């Protein structure tokens, strides 16, 4: 044990009868497969794939929380040194997307490069591609945008009030629409109001979880280049390779077979590398210039433009008996999604499925909202949908303990969920170990708890009466929304987005690769230099293809290395 870092021990005696501990490789401290590369600085991350002639992409961003976009004048910027091309929304084949459309959840609501208005400070409206990053930065400053500021709203509860400015036109009420029916996700289990009336104590609280930056050391980005045979290679720091591939395929209107995504060794993610911003942008840049192109956030963008863990505000009301039993728990939760949906719609679902925390409470109620405000869109982060409400629940438990005069660890064990209990999302609990964790900590920290709390077990005392669904559940229709088609939560409500009309993609200058949306590849695919392949009939000597121009489109690290 190290006095500075603290100890690390196994409590093998707990649940020993549910385990066999005689495996060969599992359960051993085996050195990481990639550790030597990491500690010697040789593991290739996406940004290590340097290309000859690499172009750099920087975005022109809104300085306003909310503003209509008049003219975008790029004339001066285009004449600046090193500038190769400036992209605006009209260059993006399908310039409206929602990340979870890959899972058929939600409506397309977010442009890649905004055209009509910007709904948050930092929203991109144009992308400058230049030979150096400094030239791209200089040209960004020279792009003139005719901004017409609009009223904005930053607080989620203000955003839901009548008359608040509409942040995102796809959802005019500033709330994501669940099941095509409600402006929030409901959880209804038993009759909370009746139980609150019978409780000995009412404990109320309001909790605010702050927005948090994922703060990976490696900022988000991607480098794309024309590969051979009408394909594009994309080196990416994504956390979700096929999410990013699917998103790029959709917004670029390009079959996934024509993209080659390489990643997998990533310098920290923590949830901030799912949004797939840079992959389509850098591929589009490569398509339109015919050259390798990098899109990458600097640290300021990572912190203020890159989507954070969104803020959450929770109101909790508990009904508690004198002996510490919680008989009712009611939640209202506001997830601040920022200007567009990204993943917040699902954070709400995940959060609601988690309520009321690790406790068996016979009456539970929740309304959880995904709200749009004029700030940077929120996305996933470690503990997605859970961290904020766990903070609220566990801070609240302390207030409950104080109200009834109980040791806070005993209060938790008393109300803990156990094997066989019915949970508020109407599934039976199994494989519980919450009580045991509480007991171990109490013992380690020398906190005296009652003999009953010490003797409690996740494996006993649950089920039976506690496995029954409530005899009566109070339901309601508040928060009804009209104009959206109802259906499964995983189906799009309302009219489908207009089918993407592929924009004309024309490289500004002559370039070796084929056009993305034009004709099929003319030359037969040339096999990549490969080891001898015995099944090939005649490995005829190939004449090396002549390259047009001096640019060699392969990473210095090699295409395949990762």
């Amino acid at each position: 044990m190290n006095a500075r870092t603290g100890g690390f021990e196994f409590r093998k005696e707990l649940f020993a009868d549910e385990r066999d501990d005689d495996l060969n490789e599992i359960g051993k401290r085996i050195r990481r497969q990639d550790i030597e590369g990491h500690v010697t600085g040789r593991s290739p991350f996406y940004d290590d794939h340097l290309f000859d002639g690499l172009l750099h992409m920087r975005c022109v961003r809104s300085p306003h929380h909310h503003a209509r976009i008049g003219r975008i004048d790029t004339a001066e910027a285009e004449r600046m040194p090193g500038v190769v091309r400036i992209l605006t929304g009209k260059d993006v084949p399908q310039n409206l997307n929602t990340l979870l459309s890959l899972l058929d959840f939600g409506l397309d609501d977010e442009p890649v490069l905004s055209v009509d208005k910007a709904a948050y400070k930092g929203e991109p409206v144009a992308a400058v591609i230049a030979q150096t990053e400094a030239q791209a930065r200089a040209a960004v400053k020279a792009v003139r945008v005719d901004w017409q500021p609009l009223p904005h709203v930053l607080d989620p509860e203000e955003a839901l009030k009548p008359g608040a400015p509409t942040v995102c036109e796809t959802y005019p009420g500033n709330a994501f629409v669940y099941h095509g029916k409600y402006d929030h996700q409901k959880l209804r289990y038993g009759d909370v109001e009746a139980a609150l009336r019978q409780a000995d104590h009412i404990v109320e609280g309001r909790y605010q979880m702050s927005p948090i930056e994922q703060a990976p050391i490696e900022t988000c980005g991607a480098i794309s280049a024309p590969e051979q045979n009408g394909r594009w290679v994309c080196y990416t720091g994504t956390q979700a390779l096929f999410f990013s591939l699917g998103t790029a395929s959709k917004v670029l209107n390009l079959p996934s077979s024509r993209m080659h995504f390489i990643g997998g060794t990533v310098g920290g993610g923590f949830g901030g590398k799912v949004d797939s911003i840079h992959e389509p942008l850098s591929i589009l840049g490569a398509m339109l210039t015919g050259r390798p192109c990098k899109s990458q956030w600097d640290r300021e963008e990572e912190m203020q433009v890159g989507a954070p863990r969104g803020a959450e505000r929770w109101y909790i009301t508990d009904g508690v008996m004198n002996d510490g039993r919680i008989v009712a728990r009611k939640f209202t939760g506001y997830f601040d999604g920022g200007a567009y949906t990204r993943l917040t719609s699902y954070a709400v679902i995940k959060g609601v499925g988690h309520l009321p925390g690790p406790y068996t409470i016979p009456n539970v109620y929740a309304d959880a909202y995904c709200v749009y405000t004029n700030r940077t869109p929120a996305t996933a982060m470690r503990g997605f949908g859970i961290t904020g409400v766990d903070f609220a629940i566990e801070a609240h438990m302390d207030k409950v303990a104080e109200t009834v005069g109980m040791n806070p660890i005993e209060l938790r064990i008393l109300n803990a969920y156990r094997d066989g209990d019915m949970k508020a999302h109407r599934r039976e609990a199994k494989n519980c170990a919450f009580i045991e964790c509480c007991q171990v900590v109490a013992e380690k920290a020398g906190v005296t708890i009652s003999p009953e709390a010490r003797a409690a077990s996740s494996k006993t005392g649950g089920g039976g009466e506690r496995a029954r669904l409530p005899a009566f559940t109070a339901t309601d229709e508040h928060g009804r929304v009209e104009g959206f088609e109802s259906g499964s939560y995983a189906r799009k409500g309302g009219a489908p987005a207009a089918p993407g009309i592929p924009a004309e993609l024309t490289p500004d200058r002559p370039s070796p690769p084929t056009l993305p949306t034009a004709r099929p590849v003319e030359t037969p695919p040339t096999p990549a230099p490969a080891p001898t392949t015995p099944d090939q009939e005649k490995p005829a000597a190939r004449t090396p293809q002549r390259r047009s121009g001096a640019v060699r489109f392969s990473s210095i690290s090699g295409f395949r290395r990762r």
Partner: protein
Amino acid sequence: MALHRGRGFAAINYPIGMNLGGDPSQALVHSNPDGKFTVALSAIDLGQGMKSVTRQIAAETLGVPIADVYVDTADSDTGPHDMGSFASRGTHRMGNAVIMAAKEARSVMLEAAAEELEVDASDLVTDGKGNIHVRGAPSRTITTMAAAQAAQFKQGRTIAGRGIFLIPLSDVNPETGEMSPVTTFAHAALLVEVEVDDETGEVAVTDMQSAYEVGRALNPGLVEQQLRGGAWMGMSHAAWETTEPYYPDRDHGAVDFNHYLMPGPGDLAPHHISVLERPAADGPFGGKGPGEMCANPVLPAVVNAVYDAVGVRIDELPVTPEKVLRGIKAKGGARPRQAIQSASSAKQENF
């Protein structure tokens, strides 16, 4: 002016994986003629050790040494589909897919060995050291390399396997919220000790004692790094970090690490970790995902400890010195409670 000590407790459970749209992962496993295996995935190693844990799972299932397995991940031309590395799903979902693929490859390897040894494949066992032998008769043996060579050059068998793990889509009831959000939960409890300076409002986390239940620690080293790093992140969320310090106002947003505050090495508290293992029925060797839940109990435990120390409830994160001082001022001074003292710390003198 004084330093006040307080203790705060919190405990949580954490859902593993997601259910939106179904939650699939695929894996492909194959051997070369030397009996060396490649696992092809599209999972992402963000530093959490995805390549390493799947390598162990593959080696264990195949019954070969870890050195004979290499994980190749995240090339969309060669790796099969995976949703991604998030939602604590990597070990659980991908681990199961790797087990399925490795089992299929193993069964072909054993068939190849059986043909060479002229026995029934069901009588064969692996020793995890590169040998396959007849159960109860270790002298009737063949190396995995010889079996792989026979498969490739003599028998015409492909020692390969395909695996998928899919949690089917769970619908959510609009009226009641009924759903199957996840299949398994990890658990944690944690007690922190803080020191609160009633002159400056500064909060220092001085000690953390925790218990984390992870199903099974497939690699204790990787689990430990997640729990230490995650708990550090939890204390950072509690008392340091935010992109918008005056939320919902957007002013004073940090743009670099000089302004985006995090605890440095000198701020770290000793963290005494106990790991509990209650295997999940559907987890790979019972494993759940420790990656996300490790931070969660720290946030509420810190605010509870601050209340214990000075009687100020901070319900809006982060716990900044400004909020603490305003709270102390509103109370007319620090109001220590010290509700969950241990026998030993109760004896400690006040500062």
